[in-house]
């Protein structure tokens, strides 16, 4: 069966699904092309998203989202897919709130690095609200699982907005990472900080930094690591937005005295072509010890539906 026929059938099925969806459901379907300049390889793909949100009653909010994307290389030999599901709920307790979320990332057909998989993670957070200029604390229990290990941890921290243009979040966390095969347990302690600032009415930037110490019986894991990432967004009108995000990652394995450093910078432009048709062009440059340079360019278009 030709690819164009498959795409037409998928679109037909999706359009039928859309008409059957509840009124509070929104989403998009789209196509994209990805070109890896470093490897001189390309692929085309489809992606889609469904989003449902409602107030169950004035004190409880429910949100469910499902998104997926599939790609095939230009020789039509290798395929990959990625699915993301999320269900979260917020319970309003006077001025405070209790948030619970379950997320799962998976793949049906797998990709070049792995076969099919499903990695769930979960989060329960209690947020105390003292006032919009006050220091508002939170505590959360979160966890995640992969084929190799399961992580459980507690995080405490606070959010403070000293002025409307600036807010920051500080958190400390402790996690336990248990490996299924070996039965080994790593203990992690982290400190993270996020700063958000508005720049006039058309721009904003967010900077995120974290520092983690991991103790482990495995010398390829024990060490300290950190992330420093920044995101700058500028949107002069509803029709155009430019997004630049540089990031740096570092790790020092104490038992091996080994440094691993990598970095990347991504540039993305989103365009609203009509109120329901979007286009985007993104490129990223990654630098690491394994691959000195990895440059990719993605171009795509999405058709959205919702309440217009």
């Amino acid at each position, binding site marked *: 069966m030709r690819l164009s026929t498959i795409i037409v059938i998928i679109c037909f099925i999706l359009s039928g699904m859309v008409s059957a969806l509840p009124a509070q459901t929104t989403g998009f379907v789209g196509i994209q092309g990805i070109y890896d300049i470093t490897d001189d390889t390309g692929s085309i793909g489809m992606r889609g*998203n469904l989003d449902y949100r409602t107030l169950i009653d004035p004190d409880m*909010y429910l949100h469910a989202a499902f998104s997926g994307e599939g790609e095939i290389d230009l020789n039509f030999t290798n395929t990959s897919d990625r699915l993301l599901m999320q269900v979260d709920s917020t319970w309003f307790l006077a001025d405070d709130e209790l948030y619970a979320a379950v997320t799962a990332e998976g793949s049906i057909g797998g990709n070049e690095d792995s076969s099919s998989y499903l990695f769930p993670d979960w989060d329960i957070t209690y947020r105390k609200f003292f006032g919009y200029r006050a220091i508002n604390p939170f505590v959360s229990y979160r966890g995640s699982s992969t084929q190799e290990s399961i992580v459980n941890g507690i995080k405490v921290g606070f959010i403070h907005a000293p002025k*409307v243009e600036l807010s920051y979040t500080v958190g400390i966390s402790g996690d336990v990472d248990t490996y299924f095969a070996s039965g080994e347990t790593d203990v992690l302690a982290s400190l993270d900080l996020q700063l958000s600032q508005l720049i006039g009415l058309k721009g*904003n930037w967010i900077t995120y930094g974290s520092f983690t110490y991991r103790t482990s019986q495995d010398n390829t894991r024990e060490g300290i690591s950190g992330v420093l990432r920044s995101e700058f967004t500028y949107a002069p*009108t509803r029709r155009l937005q430019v997004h630049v995000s540089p990031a740096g990652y570092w790790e020092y394995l104490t038992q091996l005295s080994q440094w691993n450093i990598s970095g990347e910078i991504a540039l993305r432009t*989103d365009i609203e072509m009509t109120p329901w048709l979007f286009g985007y062009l993104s490129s990223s440059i990654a630098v690491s010890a394994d691959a000195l340079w990895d440059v990719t360019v993605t171009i795509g278009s999405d058709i959205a539906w919702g309440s217009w």
Partner: protein
Amino acid sequence: MAKRTLVCAKLSLGIILLILPAAMLSGGIRNVQAYEALNRLQLQKTEQERIIPLIEQAEEQELPTDYLILRIQEGVAKKIPLQKIEAALQQDMAVLESARTLVYTALGPVRGEGFLKDTAHWNRIATLIKEGIGQQHMLELLQLADGSYDQLRHAGGLLLALHQWEIDDRTSMHIIKSLTQSEISSDEYRNVITLFQEALSRHIPVSEMAERIIRFAAESHSFAQLQRLTR
């Protein structure tokens, strides 16, 4: 000697105080600060003859002359031709008159007059009108603010930001109404623009994000909570 100097100074000051109002009356301008500001501009006689009657007219109509003087100063500093300054002044006077009518309609003449005693309030409303916010939406905004300058400033600032972001004013007013019904502090309103920026990143139509904000704002006690409910 010092005593004599002091007497002379007092006498001179008395004469100036007597002459100044007379001079102002001859020009017809009653606002001392406006008169001094105009003097500092050192306008030529022909320019004075064309500008001063407009300021006099504004005073007669009880419009804020400080606002108009600022416009003249701006025009002179930028070396804009006199005709254009005159036209801008006439347009500003019409806008200010329109602002007063709107305030009196929204708050009534007594509260309206009290509200407009501060030139900053005139400025804020005039700016919104000049940026193209329609009369009906301006009236709704003033009624929502109900005489609170902070509400007018923050809600008006959001309305202007959304207008410049090409979101239609009717939708923007629905958003603002929903925000005023919420517990979200008015100085956080400007953050709403970031929700639309995020929507554009995630390819959520503007109308959909607007509807989410309208639906969930009333349930939110802070902007952070609204952000979580709409993203």
